């Protein structure tokens, strides 16, 4: 286990050390102390290492992640795991706005609540939120799965494409061109797998699926006000 005190080492030196790890590194476990809400902690990792941040983080923690597992033992600031490509990010507390935005792959688990715009423009990432999510979540979501064990805020899935949205609780309102969909056996299977990997004991049958009504895909003058 490599332990780094961020207050002593500094952010750039820490990230440089993490970036220097290759696919074959034997320093696979890292612990970061005293994050104190700093920005861009463990950003741009590209090796199968496990990084545990002991405390709360600021903007863009674990952004652009590839292969690594990042655990945040606290709450996370805006843009956490933004544009993640692969790997796993687990937030023990709450996440601020646009968690997992534009993510292409990997798994983001938020054990508390997520704020607004969770999964905005997601492109293949899987996101599991144990609590609630805020307004405008999954806006323009293109692919991947967003699983919400609690409630969703206003305008869920506005202008979304082919992402699958699963909500166990209530949805305050659906965004433009987002609709309730039938849950088929393959969806229950996807959902069970994600819930298991995210450490949730919620039952897939308790969820409702939402997705694109596909009315805004191509220009239609009758929809002009919705674009």
């Amino acid at each position, binding site marked *: 286990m490599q332990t780094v005190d961020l207050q002593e080492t500094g952010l750039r030196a820490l990230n440089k050390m993490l970036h220097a790890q290759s696919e074959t590194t034997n320093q696979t476990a890292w612990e970061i102390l005293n994050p104190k809400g700093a920005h861009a902690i463990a950003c741009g990792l590209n090796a199968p290492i496990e990084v545990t941040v002991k405390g*709360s983080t*600021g903007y863009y923690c674990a952004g652009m992640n590839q292969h690594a597992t990042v655990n945040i033992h606290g709450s996370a*600031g805006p843009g956490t795991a933004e544009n993640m490509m692969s790997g796993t990010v687990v937030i023990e507390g*709450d996440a601020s*706005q646009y968690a997992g935005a534009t993510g292409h792959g990997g798994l983001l688990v938020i054990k508390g609540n997520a704020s*607004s715009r969770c999964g905005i423009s997601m492109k293949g990432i899987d996101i599991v939120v144990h609590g609630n999510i805020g*307004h*405008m979540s999954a806006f323009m979501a293109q692919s991947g799965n967003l699983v919400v064990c609690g409630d969703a805020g206003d305008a869920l899935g506005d202008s979304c494409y082919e992402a699958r949205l699963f909500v166990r609780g209530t949805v305050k309102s659906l965004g433009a061109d987002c609709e309730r969909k039938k849950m088929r056996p393959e969806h229950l299977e996807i959902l069970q797998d994600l819930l298991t990997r995210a450490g949730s004991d919620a039952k897939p049958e308790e969820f409702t699926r939402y997705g694109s009504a596909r009315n805004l895909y191509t220009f239609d003058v009758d929809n002009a006000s919705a674009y």
Partner: protein
Amino acid sequence: MCGIVGLFLKDKALEPKLGEMLTAMLITMTDRGPDSAGIAIYGGERAGRTKIVVQSDTPDLAFAGLDAKIGEVVGGRVTMSVKSTHAILDLPTGTTAKVRAALAGFEGAIRLMSRGDSLEIYKEVGLPRDVAARFDLAQMSGTHGIGHTRMATESAVTTMGAHPFNTGDDQCLVHNGSLSNHNSLRRKLRRDGIHIETENDTEVAAAYLTWQMQNGLTLGDALERSLDDLDGFFTFVVGTKDGFGVVRDPIACKPAVMAETDQYVAFGSEYRALVDLPGIENAHVWEPEPATVYFWSHSQAPTRTEKAA
């Protein structure tokens, strides 16, 4: 981008350290606003007395004998303490309007920073660290206060463009964001006789609140109404004699984090600003909801609309 901090003390034992805690929070937010900084601090209320804080770019000229001159205007005892470009004038209650009118006739282009029984506003151009040192903010005690670090987008970097803005007796406003309808709203408010000095968007928001309150609304209701009438991005923190309030626009893309313990309620644009507060590890930390007006007050339990405001 801009940075906001706020601290409302529940534990009286912390009052002597308010300035020190707020200053540390303010300096942490330098990255979000290195252009200018300001702080509004509440405390030191005395029966029968009120105060104003004034500023001049030529303090030696402007503040020489100012207390005696104002003493003549009000026909009573006036005391003054000068801190860098600012002077705090302690006046008999009910004389603020008379003094304000007289200031325009004095030398040294004296400008009013704040008025109220307990409010003092200090603000200047420069890094938060330097502004805080200039006014010895860390030494100040008080019951609550708010601070702001500015990254200017809508108007020039000047003292008068710095936050907080005084909106009424013992009331002030700080803003993170930008308003897009401030020009038309400024024209409308000026037609209604509201004094607006600069081209700054936040000054318009402050003037808007003043105008609504002159027309009989409470501060809480004026903030509710601002959600309809102000177009743009905003996280506002307002200071009142009894506490502070928070409101975010419905899109809420300007960040806001709150923390509450038995000792205090704190506001920060980022969690970073809160990390050195006592007991933060076990504080209740959350983000205020969009389009929702919050108030914390010494006079009553937390509520959506401020009774006293």
